[in-house]
C-alpha cells in the first residue's frame, strides 16, 4: 500500500511540477518546504522497507 502511495506521489510530482514546487515554496514554510515533503517520502520508504522485511521474516 505504502509502495503505491510513494509511486503515486512521485508520478504526481512529475505531472504537476513545476507548479507544485512553486506552490510549496510560496507557502508558510518557505524555500525548505520541498525538503520536508522529500523527507516525508524518505520516511515512508523506510517504513515500507521495514514492513516488507518483517513480512519476509514471518
Amino acid at each position, binding site marked *: 500500500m505504502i*509502495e503505491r502511495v*510513494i*509511486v503515486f506521489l*512521485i508520478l504526481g*510530482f*512529475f505531472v504537476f*511540477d*513545476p*507548479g507544485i*514546487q*512553486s506552490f510549496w*515554496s*510560496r507557502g508558510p514554510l518557505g*524555500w*525548505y518546504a*520541498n*525538503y520536508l515533503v*522529500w*523527507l516525508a*517520502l*524518505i*520516511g515512508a*520508504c*523506510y517504513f515500507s*522497507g521495514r514492513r*516488507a*522485511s518483517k*513480512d*519476509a521474516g514471518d
Partner: protein
Amino acid sequence: MVFSLTQLFAIGLVYLVTLFGSAYATERGWLPQSLTRHPVTRVLSLGVFAGSICFYGTLGLAANYGSGYFLYFVGASAAFLMAPVVLGPLSRVALNHKLGSLADVFAFRYPAPWVGGVVSLLMLLGVLPLIALQIHAISVTIHLLNQEFSENVLAIGFCITMIVFAILFGARHMSTRDKHQGLVVALGLESIIKLCAFVTVAVYAVYQVFGGFTEMATWLSANQPFLDGMQQTLSEGSSRSLLLMFFGATVALPHVYHILLTENDDAQSLGAARWGFPLYLLLLSACVPLILWGAIRVGADTPPEFYAIGLGLMTEDRGLTILAFVGGLAAASGVLIVSTLALASMTLNHVLLPFYRPVPGINFYTLLINTRRILIAAIILASYGVNRLLGEGQTLMSLGIVAFVAVLQFLPGLIGAFHWRKATRSGFTAGLVAGYLVWFVSLFFPLLSDLVYSSLLTSSPLLYEQRLYEPAETAWHFAASVSLALNVLAYVIVSLLTRPTVEELHAANDCMSDSFARPYQGELEAESVTDIEASIALALGQATSSREVSLALAELSLGQDERRPHALRQIRHRIESNLSTLMGQTIAHRIIGHFVPYKAEVDLLGYENIHTIESRLEDYRSQLTGMAAELDALRRYHRQILQDLPTAVCSINKDWQVLTWNGAMEDLSWVSADKIVGSSLVSLPEEWYKLLHGFASGNDVHALKSVLHIDGQNLILNLHKASIANMPAAQGDVVIVIENITEETMLEEKLIHSERLASIGQLAAGVAHEIGNPITGIACLAQNLKIETNRPELIELSNQILEQTERISAILHSLVNFSYGGNADLKRPSVPVNIHQCVDEAIKLLSLSQVDKGIAFANLCPADMKVLGDPQRLAQVFVNILTNARDASRPGSQVAIEAGMVDDHVEITVVDQGHGISQAHLKQVFEPFFTTKDPGQGTGLGLAIVSSIVEEHHGSITAEPATDGGTRVIIKLPGYESSGPELTSTANS
C-alpha cells in the same frame, strides 16, 4: 590566495592514497567485515553518483534556474524511491544471472549478437562527455587555485594520475567477477569526504558569512530578488525533461550500475539504498542554496558552478578552500574511475571479445586483464580529447545534460524489459538508434561543431545560446523530449510489427516481475561433468575450462562424478552465469549454447515439471508475500503430508525423471530423495529400477505381492499406480504407491506354519496312542518268545524285535513330547533354573548313553546364572542340543557350553567341532522332520522340540557356522535376577 602546484598535487595525492589505502586494507581483511559489509557502507558507495555535476553543477543550475537544481536530486532519488518500477527488477535479474553491466542486461533481455556491442558503443559515446566533465571540473578548479599552468596541462596531469588509480582500483584482479569490496569501501569513504566538505562549506556560509540562520533570513528578506530567484522555476516542459533525465541517468549510468549491482552480491542491499541514498542526496541538496547565498553575499568572483571554491577564496580561508578542493576531487575522481571501469568492461566483453579466438600458449585471464587496462587508459584519454575540444566558458551542466540525454535513451528499453513481454530486440535497437540520432544531431554534433569550428562559427543558432556554448533551456527540452518520443515510438511500433523469437520470449519471462528464473528443461548432450569440461575446453582451452567447471561445482556443492540431468543443467547454467561476469552475457551465452547444447529442440515455453517449479519456489520463498505466500504455505502443508505419509510414494514423469520420493520411500529403498529426485529412474539400484520401470510402463494399475530381491533379502510389495491427467504441468506423470507387506506375509506364513505344526502334533499324539498299544503287545510277545525258548537264533530274533520296538517307542515318545510342546495347558510353574546345573544334568544324562565317541563336554557357564522356567524342559533342550552336537562331532573333539548376560538376556552358546551345517540348511534345522542324519538315525524332531520349548520360555534360538568349522547354537532366554523380590517369592512358591 594562491596555492602552489606542489601543494595541490600533494593534497590530491594524499587523498587518493588514503582512498586506495582503505580499499587495500579492506581487501587484505584488515578492516572488520561488520564495517566493510555494513548496509550503510553500500549506501554511501552509491554516493559515487554525485559527481562534479552535484558538487559544482547544481550551484550553477541554482544560480541560473533557481529551484531547478532541486530536480537533479529529486530525479535521482525518485529512481530509488520508485525501485519496484525499474531498479528492483533490474537488481533481481542482474544478481540472479550475474549480469555485470547494462549491456549484459540488454543482451540478456534482447538476445542478439549485436545488441551488447551496440549498447556498449552508444553508452561509451554518451558517457564520454560526462567523464570529460569531471576532467574539466578538476582542471578548472586547480586553475582557480593556481594560475601557473594552463587548464590543459593540468587536465593531462589529472588524467595520468586517474589512469594509474583506475587500474589500481579495478584492474588488479584476474576477473571482474571478483567483487571489489575494497572499491566499495573506498567509494563509501569518498562519499563521506564529499558530504563533509559540502556540509562544512554550507555551515561556514551560514555562520561565518551571515553569522547565523536568523541573520541569513534577515539578509534574504532585505535582498528579496535572491530569495525570489531561488523560488523561480523552469517552464513545465523543461522541468519535466530535467526530472526525467536525472531519473534515467540514475538508472542507466554505468557507474551507478557498477556499484549497485556489479560490485554487489547482496540482493537485500537495495532495501537500505532505497531510503538511504535519497537521504544522502537530501543532505547534499540542502547545502546548495546556503552555499549559493553565502558566495553571493561575499561577492565570490568565480563562475557560479565553482562557488564552493570561490567562497573560501573570497574569504581567504585556506582550510575551507582545501576542503572544498578535496570534496570536488572526491566527486570527480569517483565518477571518473568507476565509469571508466564499467565502460572498459562493457567494451571488452561486447565489442572486443566477440572477435576473440583462443590462441594456444596465451593465458586467457591475463589477456583479459591486460586488455581491460589498455581500455581504461584509452577511455580516459578519449575523455581528455573531448575535454580538450571544449571551448572556454563551457558550463559543466551543459556537458552533463548532453550525457544525461544520451543515457536517457536506454530508459524505454529498460522499463520495457521488465514490464512488456512483447518487446523485441528489433524494437529496442530501432528505438535506441532513433533516440541517439536525434541526440547526436540536436546536442552532440552542435557541441562538437561549436568546439571544432568555434573560431568560424559562433554556435549552432537553433539550439545553443551564443554566449556560453550552453544549451538553452528550450534545447534540453527539445532534445530530450524529441529523442525520447522517437525512441519510444520506434521501440513500440517495431516491437509490435516483429514477432518475438522463442529465445526472446524466454528472456522476457525471466525478466518479468512476476516470473522466477526459469532454467531450460531439456536434457543436455553432455552426460557427465567431464563431458561438459571437455566441451568448454574446445572454446576456452583446457586450463580455463577446468577452472570454470571446478568453480561452478564448488558453488553448487556438487561432485565431479555428477550425472543427474537436472544437476548437469544447473552446472551449465552456473558456468554460463560465471562466464557472463567474466566476458559478458552475449559471449558466455554463445559459447555455452554452442558447446554445451541440449539434445533436441526444447520447448522453452512448455510447462516445467513439478520438481523444477518446487525447487524455484523453495529458492524464492523469502520473496513471496501476500496471497503468494499463503498459497506457498498451503503447498508446503500438502507437501509435508505427502512427505510424512507412512506409505511409500513416488512419482515419475514421462521422461522417466523422478519427481517425488517421500520419506517412507527413502526408508524402504534406502535411496535418499536428495540423490534421486530430479534424476532419471535409471539412477536407482538395478532391482528398484526394474521393478518401478516395469510397473510404470505396464498396463496393470496394481501389482500385488511383487517380490524384490535386494541385498540378500526378499521384500514383498504391493504396488499401485495412478496417472495424473488433469494438470498440464504433470501431463504423463505417474504416481506409484508402494506398500511393504513383507512382515505381514511372514507373519501369515508363520501362522500357517504354526497351524501345520499344531496339526502334526495332534496327529502325532493320535498316532502315538494308536501305535503304542500294538507295539507294547509286540514287545510283550517278543519278551515271551525269548523266555519260552532256548534256541539261540530265536532269542537273537526276539532281542532284535525288542530293540526295534524300543526304537519305535522312542520315536513315539518324541512325537508325544513334540505334540505337548505347543500345549500351554501343560506348562508347569516357572522357577529359577541354574543354567550351569541344568547343563551338568544334561551332560550326565548323555554320559549314560551307549554311544561313546570320547567327546569332551566343557560346561563353562557361570555357576550363579539363572533363568526362569521349567527345569525339566530346559534340561531336555540341552540334552537335544548336546546330542546333536555329539553326533556331529568328530571322535575326541570338544563341545563347549558358555553363557553370559547380554543386556537383560542370558545368552547360552553351544559350539561343537563337527562338520557344521551348510548355509542352505541353517534356516531349516528347526523345522520338524528335518534331519541331515542317515535314515533311521534321527527323527528330525529334536531341534524342533528345542525351538518350541525355547519359544515357550520367551526366548530365541539360532544356529550359525562356527569359526573353526563346527556349528554354534545360540539360545537367548530372559535373565533372572535373584534380587527381585517378586520373582524370588514366585520362585520359592
